């Protein structure tokens, strides 16, 4: 299967959108494009499975290597392994859902969907590219659309949030850029990931480069204490924007942390592993407690994202294979879950025009579907078995427990403690919003979800459940990649 399709489809979609006449055409084009992309991703998954079953033990599948710049030895090197496929699936699902959820956008529709698709394009490119320059290129492509999405279609203190978000992300990518330049000269004028993963980088350089990469990508994935863009950005963004931010762009960071920082610089990872563990277990508890104090649903979900993403970073810091698998699972699960959560918040906001927990109540009566989804998402985020959150978190815990020293154990326990706090804030929020007597008689005649919202919610729920009920497939998908990374860490 030709991976370029994954880039061409969004590109064509975006350009077609620019040619569309009215907003309806735009919406359908975007929808069609994203669905095609989702289908592609699924096809990719099955082709990959077929290959694996056929006994193809290659590290990368469907590789392509197009020379961009001879003299600087820059290659457009793309390929996929299980990890990137899972990420692509996540992205495709979130994109479809996002397109559907923003169906009733009527302000500058064309630009809106154009930017959405552009953002998606960046993500797709990022996940399949195995050359640092290309990777970085796609990473940065997806930044400016975020700025405009928040700035133009956002709400609340949007200019501030947009500025903060884009500047912090740019700060991160600046560090990454320096790291790439360093790699360029260390790797003998070649920044191909596979090439770099085969050379041995001197330890003292790894100690310099690792923080650059890890913090750089960490900023994208709300690595404590570089997380402050998350609450503001998410809360100001339009629904689809928040979904993309939480569901896709935070994953870019996590993926980068693993694929670039840890994979290429294992020595550095060992050096700073403990720091990461400390910071992220702080982030988990701290995020949970801060979440507990939030009144605004979007802020609540944003902070809980900080806490949840903390799990995957913690797992990355643990440097055991199970933990790494768990980290990836957590990323995917969190992506689906948070995207859906933001979607639900968006739906509620569209109807009640408030996101304040204490102004909502008893919505179960008027919008059963939405509140049910809200329930499921809430349960997923507090890690209920049968939903993706549980699988991911448990894998993380078991994986973290594998290294048997008190330090890591304590960190794990601290992290695990958050499942209680999570239960507290989720139940408070959900209970307040859905249960109890109807808060405001004006809500009495509100409508339940429309077809597009239902469809989108179902797509995401399908993802959540398919991971939660039969986690095996995801596990098989992620394990080989994690194993390769692990081998590089253990130096096998």
């Amino acid at each position, binding site marked *: 299967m030709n991976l370029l399709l994954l880039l061409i489809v969004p590109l064509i979609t975006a350009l077609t959108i620019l040619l569309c006449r009215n907003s309806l055409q735009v919406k359908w084009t975007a929808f069609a494009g994203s669905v095609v992309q989702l289908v592609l991703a699924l096809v990719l998954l099955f082709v990959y499975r077929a290959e694996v079953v056929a006994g193809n033990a290659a590290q990368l599948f469907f590789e392509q290597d197009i020379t961009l710049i001879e003299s600087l030895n820059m290659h457009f090197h793309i390929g996929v392994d299980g990890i990137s496929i899972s990420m692509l699936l996540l992205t495709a699902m979130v994109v479809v859902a996002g397109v559907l959820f923003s169906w009733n956008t009527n302000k500058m529709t064309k630009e809106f969907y154009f930017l959405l698709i552009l953002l998606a394009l960046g993500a797709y490119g990022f996940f399949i590219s195995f050359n640092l*320059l290309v990777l970085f*290129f796609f990473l940065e492509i997806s930044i400016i659309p975020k700025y405009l999405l928040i700035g133009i279609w956002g709400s609340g203190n*949007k200019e501030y949030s947009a500025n903060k978000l884009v500047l912090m992300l740019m700060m991160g990518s600046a560090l990454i850029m320096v790291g790439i330049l360093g790699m360029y000269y260390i790797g003998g004028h070649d920044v191909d990931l596979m090439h770099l993963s085969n050379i041995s980088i001197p330890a003292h350089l790894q100690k310099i480069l690792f923080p650059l990469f890890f913090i750089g990508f960490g900023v994208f994935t709300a690595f404590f204490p570089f997380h402050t863009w998350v609450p503001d950005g998410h809360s100001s963004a339009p629904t689809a924007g928040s979904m993309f931010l939480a569901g896709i762009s935070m994953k870019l960071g996590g993926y980068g942390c693993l694929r670039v920082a840890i994979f290429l610089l294992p020595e550095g990872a060992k050096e700073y592993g403990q720091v990461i563990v400390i910071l992220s277990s702080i982030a988990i508890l701290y995020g949970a407690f801060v979440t507990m104090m939030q009144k605004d649903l979007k802020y609540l979900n944003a902070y809980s994202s900080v806490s949840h993403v903390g799990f995957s970073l913690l797992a990355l810091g643990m440097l055991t294979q199970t933990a790494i698998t768990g980290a990836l699972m957590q990323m995917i699960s969190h992506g689906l879950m948070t995207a859906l959560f933001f979607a639900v918040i968006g739906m509620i906001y569209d109807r009640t025009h408030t996101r304040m927990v204490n102004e909502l109540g008893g919505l179960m009566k008027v919008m059963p579907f939405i509140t049910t989804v809200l329930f499921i998402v809430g349960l997923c985020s507090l890690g209920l078995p049968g939903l993706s959150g549980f699988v991911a978190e448990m894998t993380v815990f078991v994986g973290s427990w594998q290294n048997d020293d008190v330090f890591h154990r304590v960190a794990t326990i601290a992290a695990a403690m958050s499942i209680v706090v999570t239960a507290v804030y989720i139940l408070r929020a959900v209970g307040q919003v859905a249960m109890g007597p109807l808060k405001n008689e004006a809500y009495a005649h509100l409508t339940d979800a429309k077809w597009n919202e239902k469809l989108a919610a179902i797509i995401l729920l399908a993802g959540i459940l398919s991971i939660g009920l039969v986690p095996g497939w995801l596990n098989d998908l992620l394990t080989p990649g994690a194993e390769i990374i692990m081998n590089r860490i253990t130096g096998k």
Partner: protein
Amino acid sequence: MNEFFLLMKSELMVTAIIFLLLFIKVGKGMQNERLLPLIQLLLLLNVIFGFFFNQEGNAFGDMFHSTPMIVFEKNILNVGVYLISMLFSDWFKKTAHLAEYFLLMLSALLGMFFMLSSANMLMFYLALELASIPVAAMANFNLTQKQSSEAAMKMILSAAFSSGILLFGISLIYGVTGTINFEELSNYTTLSPLYTMAFIFLFSAFAFKLSVVPFHFWTADVYEGAPIATTSFLSVISKAAVAFILITVLYKVFQPLQNIWYVLVLLLAFITIVIGNLFAMRQQNMKRFLAYSSIAQVGFILVGISGSNTTGISSVVYFLLVYVFSNLAAFGVVSVISEQVNKESISDYKGLYQTNPLLTWVLALSLFSLAGVPPTAGFFGKFFLLTAGGAKASYAFMIVVVLNMVISLYYYLKVVRAMFIDQNETPIAAIQISAPVKLALIICSAGILLIGLFGWIFDFIQSLN
């Protein structure tokens, strides 16, 4: 004989056009409406011709020499001038002395060509003056505006001052080495304090022309006061020319002093980027804003130069190629707006997207390109500069430089935000864009978008040296 002509073809072309214009001028003259298209046509021919019959070699007793790279650089300048002639048609149409203006501009261009080809201090000095004095006159071209003449005054005085410094340096060099020929100078390897001092005098003159901090102060004032056509000519064409020749001077002539000038360049690059950004942050006038931002850009060029390898050369050339398109596009939009509704302040741009989507997109693109955000070519330009610089510079330095990219993004976004996000009940009315301007803007945007994606362009430049 033939190859002698071909060797100097660019210069001869420009000279020919100059004479043509002179004849037209001294003849019965011509209406701007008819003259301008003619000029644009001639310049277009000039651009096209520039790409054929390239010849390399020396002339005038090694005072003049030409290589493929130099020819390419000249072509970049040609393109730039052609774009200028298109972009500012509105203003050209209105101005009283169109022919003179182009006479001045083209003679400045001629000076730059000779400067690029010069292989001798004397030649270089003459070319430099030829390239700078007419610009001072061009800066004064809004004859009735106070600001314009103030700008011109500042320009000519500081230029003269800097050439005084330059000459003093050259004289000392002559005193130390007894030669003013680049070739011989590059073989002179014995370092002496006097020689170093001479070099620094010389270098600071370059820094002045490149508007490197702390020799940059004239820039902003002149840019703001001068007509936009002049400003863009200054900030794009002459800057590019000086950068090109600076590379030759540093890499070839002062090869022996490399250890010194490396540190010098790095130091100035650092100061320039930081100060340039800090000044650009609070600008409200678009022209002034672009002036300072271009100062910061120069800092990045210096980073590329500090690489002191072939990548350094080609990355700078590549960046300037991109820079021509990006910056000219920006100035083009600014001039269109200030010509039509005569507003130049960022706050006037609020809600521009509602009324003028095309202009807004072009301006946004160019700003992103200047900020170095993908997928624009500026991203690659910056990236290559840093790649070149990274060959020797330390991580700390690189981090500082790259973080400054973030600051620069901040103020570029200020404009973007004003145009796209900010609400404004009375935005600038929809503007009628004349055909040549539109064409030029489209060319620029295409350049911004495509140059980056065509990797072979960089390879081509690389292959030139």
